[in-house]
């Protein structure tokens, strides 16, 4: 093989690798070390994700919702207490916690939590993994939410795979 051809081949390989790298959401770091495990004991999923049975999107808690319970310090371990103190800081600055989005369905597709949970009777862990067992927020989605993931399940469950059913 001649040199120019090799050069081109290597560059193409590198670009391909970069594309793959760029298209993954990357490791997410959340602003607070929220423990689903600790909270799953105290509250139902709808307490913080109120809309998953009623609307397309599940919803996130507002700072006010957190402060409902976290008026005083609720944690016991010193590590947790330090983390929880951040809430008071947010409250003082009147700032919402800017959670980093992990599960992304692009805007050209329609995904309804209500349909999948209420009609499809899916459990949260099917897509979100065993989230209630985690002590800190996951860095990556439990599985990549891409079209393959959705379509494979739709095919298995014999639900519509009409493009127009989800794309809009």
């Amino acid at each position, binding site marked *: 093989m001649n040199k120019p051809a090799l050069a081109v081949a290597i560059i193409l390989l590198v670009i391909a690798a970069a594309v793959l790298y760029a298209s993954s959401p990357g490791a997410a770091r959340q602003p607070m070390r929220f423990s689903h495990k600790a909270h799953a004991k105290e509250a139902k999923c709808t307490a913080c994700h109120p809309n998953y049975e009623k609307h397309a999107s599940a919803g996130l808690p507002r700072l006010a919702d957190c402060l409902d319970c976290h008026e005083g310090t609720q944690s016991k371990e010193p590590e947790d207490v330090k983390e929880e103190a951040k809430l008071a800081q947010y409250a003082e600055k009147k700032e919402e916690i800017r959670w980093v989005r992990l599960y992304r369905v692009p805007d050209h597709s329609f995904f309804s939590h209500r349909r999948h949970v209420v*009609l499809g009777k899916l459990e949260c862990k099917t897509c979100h993994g065993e989230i209630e067992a985690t002590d800190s927020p996951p860095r990556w989605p439990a599985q990549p939410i891409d079209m393959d993931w959705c379509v494979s399940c739709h095919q298995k469950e014999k639900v519509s795979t009409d493009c127009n059913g989800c*794309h809009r």
Partner: protein
Amino acid sequence: MPRWGMVIDLDKCTGCQACVVACRVENNVPFAASEQAEMGRAIFWIEILSIVEGEYPNVKTRFIPRPCMQCDHPPCTAVCPTGATYKNDEGLVAQIYPRCIGCRYCTNACPYTVKFFNWFKPQWPAEMRNFNPDVAVRPVGVVEKCTFCHHRLQKAKEQAKIESRELREEDYVPACVQTCPTKAMYFGDLDDSKSAVSHLAKSTRTFRLLEDLGTEPKVYYLSEGEWYGGRKG
């Protein structure tokens, strides 16, 4: 399976363009600004075609709202190399943006010129970015067209299923039909014998555009009528 169609009564249509603006707002259609508009690149999923006939003083202006015809034999789907546009089981001719490569074969193939290519990245000032979350905001380089507001169908179907009932005629109405001030537009299942559109599509006043091309459009028009001297009954 329902077969979605539309009937437009040209006797009632005044060319007011409420449908045009309602569609644009509902579907996040960008405005082109003057230079692009002058080049004919303004995107109108539904457009009012106006035709002036006759000579002064015997002049007549006719208005024809022209959405996508949602043909049963669509010329556009036949030429799409990627399957980005295709006709689904309910007769809706879909436009799937992530699959579109912007080759514009479909734009050329459509005899009704209802397909629009995004020649430029839509410019939205920051204050105006309140998009309808139910409809994708299209990037540059893809083709778009009227979808009969099928995002409303997606939501209506889910609502009906949740309420354990069938889909009703009034559950799914595209934005243009909903807003038409003269109620000139009708929408529904052409194959449902109880629906308004199935009756009207068989009226003696009915015609379709470019029928001889064999596209079998699902948008029917009712022609304007004469005045019968105020006869009653």
